[in-house]
């Protein structure tokens, strides 16, 4: 197989047929709107348990996860931070609304944030800000840092934190902040 294979087809034509076949196969997969993959028994059992707990079909749940991750993978690919920042700003607005509803206030500085309940001075939660140093030196540090900061705290926003962390990862991977 490693030796030269004699063929009636020229290497150029063979390359074209291969390319066309590969494209056709990719289109078939996309058109089928189905993807199959293997997963360990333990993981499938975990998925079953989570889906049961959420009351949704496994396929719907996994599809939602995949779509969410795909949208994050797209962030910053066009070289603009707009979409990523908008998502973070939306998250911060959600938290603002939540805090207003709970009549809580939030204080933040570069390394910590504190949530005050009902306007009194006793803070109920204080956490270090894991994102503060990571964006040092970038012009967008303040808005992103604030948005990340705003997305931490109450258990209600744990999913926001997780999302923000993954956003951060995608944003960094796609070199969004090199634009500063």
């Amino acid at each position, binding site marked *: 197989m490693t030796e030269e294979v004699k063929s009636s*087809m020229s290497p150029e034509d063979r390359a*074209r047929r291969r390319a066309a076949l590969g494209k056709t*196969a990719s289109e078939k*997969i996309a058109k089928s709107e189905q993807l199959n*993959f293997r997963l360990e028994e333990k993981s499938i059992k975990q998925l079953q348990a989570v889906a049961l707990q959420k009351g949704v079909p496994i396929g719907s749940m996994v599809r939602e996860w995949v779509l969410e991750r795909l949208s994050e993978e797209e962030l910053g690919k066009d070289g603009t931070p707009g979409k990523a920042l908008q998502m973070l700003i939306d998250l911060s607005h959600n938290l603002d609304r939540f805090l207003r509803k709970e009549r809580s206030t939030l204080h933040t500085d570069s390394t910590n944030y504190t949530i005050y309940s009902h306007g009194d001075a006793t803070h109920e939660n204080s956490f270090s800000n894991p994102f503060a140093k990571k964006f040092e030196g970038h012009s967008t540090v303040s808005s992103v840092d604030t948005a990340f900061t705003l997305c931490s705290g109450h258990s209600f926003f744990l999913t926001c934190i997780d999302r923000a962390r993954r956003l951060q990862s995608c944003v960094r991977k796609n070199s969004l902040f090199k634009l500063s």
Partner: protein
Amino acid sequence: MVRLLDDYRILDSAYKHGITDAEIAYVLSDKNATRRVYDLHDDDDGNAQDMFVAHTGTRPWPIEVGVSYRPDEDVVFHASRISIEYEKLYKEEV
């Protein structure tokens, strides 16, 4: 001038080892980063043939798919778990 086709046909012989249509498509897909293609000798009718090898994510091992480039159609005549011959080649590349 070579004809570029927008479909391929899978012969019954390709199903002999239990590989599915979807798996064949995954192996042939140009969006599969694990795909490697090896030249085969022409078939008895003088048609060029290729062996595609790739991971599909559906099995713990790679799958090999044999394709014949006929004048009017691309034909998949073989699909199976990777054979020893290609396993060595494939391991060196992927």
